[in-house]
């Protein structure tokens, strides 16, 4: 049946091409839309994902890494005393402004970290060194924010929160969900930039001792400090992502666009299969006349739908790789994990199979008598 299905499908190249365009369109749309969505939404947990901490401790009901509430820095001693905690350091996140050479200003997110452990520091540092923040007035900014910050150079001096800041290193690709660029510096300097008391901080970044259970340590932290919440890294990253998902309707808009693409793909595949069937009604009648069962006839359609889905998916995935390679940037990353590609292709296959049901309904009505009446 497969060879029969394939050869007859290949004979109608024009229609096959139309169907493949539909499948490719669906695969590319699902993967690129999904990849853009994942790339964007993953920015919401960027600091957490790359912060090197196993556990994040913050104010009760903390819900977004970029919008923390101040907590007393002195809690750190209680956390350090909990079994399983190898290291705990205060971390400061807050909003300030950076002056620009043109006389303007740009809102920035100041991130202050412990200068000794450098826990939660900038990553992918391409110019300068990560520990350069220990230098007087040292800050790290990201190369990709050059346009917003009017292309600062290494060694250039700016003001952040009315205080002197010297760019000592530059990272690449640290662009958060917010439009404000991140500025990494030491905890004490960050407190100055944010005009905060150094007795307050936003989080405690906790590194676990080898073999320690993250969930158990989080429970212990919450028991010792009832006003605090503690989450393993992945959990807090998800909380931060979920904040934007649920409060902005981002997931719905991306999902709707993706569903629309799938629907268009489905219509194209269904229409093409239907046109193929209409064009070959006599041949299906012949097959029935010479003894093909309903199941055999449907298996021809199914095989054609599977071939369209498979070939279309492969072409689509190659295109997705190309799009990802050429168009994914730190500003608009396209993250296409294997499960998205696999899920997208499975969905497209399902759609193709469902699409084959419509022409099958037409074939069911074909009377083999028609071949004797012509």
């Amino acid at each position: 049946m497969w060879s029969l299905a394939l050869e007859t499908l290949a004979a109608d190249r024009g229609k096959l091409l139309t169907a493949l365009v539909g499948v490719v369109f669906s695969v590319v749309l699902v993967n690129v839309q999904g990849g853009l969505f994942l790339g964007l939404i993953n920015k919401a947990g960027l600091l957490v994902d790359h912060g090197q901490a196993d556990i994040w401790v913050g104010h009760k009901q903390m819900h977004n890494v970029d919008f923390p509430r101040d907590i007393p820095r002195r809690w750190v001693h209680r956390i350090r005393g909990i079994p399983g905690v190898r290291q705990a350091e205060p971390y400061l996140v807050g909003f300030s402004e950076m002056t620009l050479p043109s006389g303007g200003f740009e809102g920035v997110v100041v991130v202050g970290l412990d200068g000794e452990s450098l826990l939660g520091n900038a990553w992918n540092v391409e110019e300068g060194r990560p520990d350069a923040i220990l230098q007087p007035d040292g800050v790290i900014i990201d190369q990709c924010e050059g346009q917003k910050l009017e292309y600062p150079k290494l060694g250039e001096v700016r003001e952040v929160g009315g205080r002197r800041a010297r760019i000592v290193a530059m990272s690449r690709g640290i662009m958060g969900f917010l439009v404000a660029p991140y500025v990494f510096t030491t905890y004490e300097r960050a407190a100055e930039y944010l005009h905060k008391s150094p007795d307050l901080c936003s989080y405690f970044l906790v590194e676990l001792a080898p073999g320690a259970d993250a969930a158990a340590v989080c429970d212990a932290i919450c028991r010792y400090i009832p006003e605090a919440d503690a989450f393993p890294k992945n959990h807090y990253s998800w909380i931060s992502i979920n904040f934007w998902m649920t409060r902005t309707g981002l997931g719905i808009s991306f999902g709707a666009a993706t569903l629309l693409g799938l629907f268009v793909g489905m219509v194209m595949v269904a229409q093409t299969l239907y046109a193929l069937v209409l064009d070959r009604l006599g041949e299906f009648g012949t097959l029935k006349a010479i003894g093909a069962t309903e199941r055999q006839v449907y298996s021809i359609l199914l095989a054609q739908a599977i071939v369209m889905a498979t070939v279309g998916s492969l072409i689509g995935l190659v295109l997705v790789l190309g799009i990802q390679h050429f168009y994914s940037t730190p500003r608009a990353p396209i993250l296409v994990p294997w499960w998205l590609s696999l899920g997208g292709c499975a969905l497209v296959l399902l759609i193709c199979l469902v699409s084959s049901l419509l022409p099958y309904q037409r074939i069911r009505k074909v009377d083999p008598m028609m071949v004797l009446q012509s």
Partner: protein
Amino acid sequence: MIADQTRSWSDRNPDDCAVYTKGVHKAYRRGAAATPVLEGIDLAVDRGRCVYLAGPSGSGKTTLLSILGCILSADQGTVRILGEDVGSIGRDERTTLRRTRLGFVFQRFHLIRGLNAINNVCVPLVLQGLTRPKAQVRAMALLEAVGLADRAGVDPRNLSAGQCQRVALARALAGDPELILADEPTASLDAANGQEVMALLKRLTVEQGKTAVVVTHDPRIFHFADRILHLENGRIMDRAEQPAAAMAAAGG
């Protein structure tokens, strides 16, 4: 009762006949109106015989052939094909009977587009569950038998009408059927090709011991028949035992 041998009707065992019908009636209905097409067809065709159904358009030839091919059901009467009472079996069993024991040749060939000659011949074998390599060996042997071995890989669009009908003939024989049903097999062919195809059909059916029922109104091929039954207004009118008599009746 029209029998294709001289024995009387009462002597015949329906199970011994390739085709046996008794009192077959068929009418096409449109709304409340019914147009009778077959009215009391009694027929017995012995195995290994080649019987033609002749008659003018609308006489019921194709309807009778469809009933014999288990594509259409009779409204009334008994139809036994190769010993099977097809009136008492379900649609699936009739499909199986068509697939495994019957072979069809159509007026317009009805070859599958996109499949070359050999793959068209493979279709019934693939439907029977044969693997493609085994099917191709059998299909090639049949194409050799119809003189088209050198055209096996050719798309039917590039074959002449006569060659297409020979491919269709090979396809009809592919599943090694016991009964071949042909519907106007020469209607789309010129005289020379028509003679050639019918000679081939006759030779292959005789060589392989098949039974053939051929619908035609082409008197030029009557001499290939063992017996010709003339239908008119849904009844078998001409009881000629010899082809020559039917040819004379048809003016051929």
